[in-house]
């Protein structure tokens, strides 16, 4: 089957259009319309009044990371390094150690995420075989006054709860 060729009519070849001035004025009328609309009633602006009005985020939103726990409170992570291996920006740093609680043989003794390097691609979440790392904290504004405090440790990651109900998160394909 041959590709269908459709000749698109070229715009801008009429005299008036080539004169440019008329088109400039047309364009300017459009922008002026917007200007007056907003000037006369600025409640019509297409803006969100952040930070007072926060955006509603969905369960699929990739926010700051967290590490999940089993129902009995033990760490789900088994320090398999899959997230670190998959991380395209190399922002995950894990150190593993022995584990004796019967869940696994291995657990992280250090789990650092350098949020300054993270690109929030979510590959770590996809790579995780244990559903131990998630990006469902709903935290989208990650700021700090120092570089050091942008590196999250194991404790920080475990402390933050998820922002969504389990079924909602699962529905999001997580």
């Amino acid at each position: 089957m041959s590709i269908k060729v459709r000749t698109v009519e070229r715009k801008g070849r009429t005299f008036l259009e080539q004169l440019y001035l008329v088109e400039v004025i047309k364009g300017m009328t459009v922008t002026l319309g917007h200007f007056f609309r907003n000037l006369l009633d600025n409640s019509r602006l297409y803006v969100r009044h952040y930070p007072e009005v926060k955006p509603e985020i969905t369960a699929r939103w990739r926010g700051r990371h967290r590490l999940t726990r089993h129902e009995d409170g033990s760490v789900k992570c088994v320090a398999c390094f899959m997230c670190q291996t998959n991380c395209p920006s190399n922002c995950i740093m894990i150190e593993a150690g022995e584990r004796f609680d019967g869940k696994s043989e291995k657990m992280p003794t250090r789990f650092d995420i350098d949020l300054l390097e993270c690109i929030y691609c979510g590959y770590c979440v996809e790579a995780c075989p244990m559903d131990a790392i998630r990006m469902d904290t709903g935290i989208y504004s990650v700021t700090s006054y120092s570089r050091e405090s942008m590196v999250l440790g194991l404790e920080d990651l475990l402390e933050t709860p998820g922002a969504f109900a389990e079924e909602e998160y699962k529905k999001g394909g997580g």
Partner: protein
Amino acid sequence: MAELVKLFVNGQEVEVESGKNLIDALRVVGIEIPHFCYHPALGADGNCRMCLVGIEDGRPPLVPACKTPVQEGMKVLLDAEHIKKIQRDVLEFELINHPVDCPVCDQAGECALQDYYMNYSLDDSRMQVAQVTKGKRMDFGCGVVHDQERCVLCGRCVRFTRQITKTGELGIVNRTDAARVSIFPGKPLNNRYALNIVDICPVGAMTSSDFRFRQRVWFLKKDPGICHGCSKGCAIYIDHHREKYKDDVIYRYRARTNLNVNGYFICDDGRLSYAGENENRQTSALADGAVIGFDEGIELVRERLDRARKPLMLISPDCSLEQMWAVQRIATLYGAELSGYSDNYIIDGDGDEYLINDDKAANRRGLELLEIDFSRAQFLTGLQHTDLLVNFNNDLFFGGVDEELKSLLDKTQSIAVCSHQLQVYESASIVLPTASYSEYGGTIINEDNVLQRFEKALFKNEDPKDVLEITRLLGGAINDAPHAWPGIKQSVACLADIDPQAIPAEGIKLQNSEDTNVGA
């Protein structure tokens, strides 16, 4: 070289060495036959059935490749449907009770089962009954940790303890699905080669407690090197990795196959000697205990050497041939006496007939070839008369503190060019840091006259200068290791024909060594 035979693999003609089995012979020409239980050092056992191939000459449809020697005109089938099916079936069988805990398994990434599954199977499990559970994290002694569930019962470890170390600590107990590798109760592994079991285990059943969980293997850079633990000079792989924001460190040594020297294995002492490369390192130049800049240190050493009337230089028997040559040159330049005294490197009775030697000096043959005197008499006389000792990384107290030497050393003004912080260098007034053997390249000659070359493996954030570089900074003419060779070739007869760039991985066995053995 053995004679060549021609045979056909999947209809394609290949030429291989005769006298080998199919696995070994075809591996040389790049054809892989999957196998678990066969290991060239342990021989064919034929229990895993993974290497089943077809031979089109009236034999049964499936024969184990590990037990089949190559023959002229043999027609080997590797990709026939029934071969593929048997491979899939064997893998399915092996995986019935395998826990598939690859995420937490240290072997993941270098696991035969994993690789073969990806290459030959990719089937889903059909099992619906619960898996048989067995012992996990069992301490077998000598730093070997065993996981019975991951085991594929190839028996390599059992055969290793019976054939190689002849200690026989391991056995396969029980039968059928309850079979497992075990030690006899109360008799854990107890031999100096036990960690080789971790290397030869095709799956993650045997892990080393030393390396366990420390790093994933796919992050490691695997550079060939030579163990400097003793005069055997075993071929090793240096597995190292630079973690983010950190320095390049070695995580483990593994045996590298070199049939000329160590065969397939290395001893545990050598394997664990990697820790010495990471720890206790001298990283900064010191003058009377105070940290100074390296360049400043070099200047100070030059000054002292110029002032000294009768300097004495002491070189480590671990140094590479090139470094020895360069130090020899610099000794001539400063009119210094040169000694390679290193009797303390010999620990009597420590060696065995296999891979461990009494002599812990890696390159004593180099000292002999370059005719560097390493007699105690010469060194003692030199030490008594010298006003400046320059010690190039020679740990005089290796086998224990020598009181006579210690009192003499304390009296002598000395300069230490050292890679590690050791007691022997404490009396030195100037200390210069230098590279250790994983951080430079060179050649060494082992006790059996095998010349081996190794390359720089580690690239530290602050790369320490190697002895050769330090001699250059002190005014020597040798720029780098290859630059030393024309001189070495001229003065050492048995090395005259060696091309240092063309030394093969397995090394070169030097000839007419008796004639050149003068210095000893």
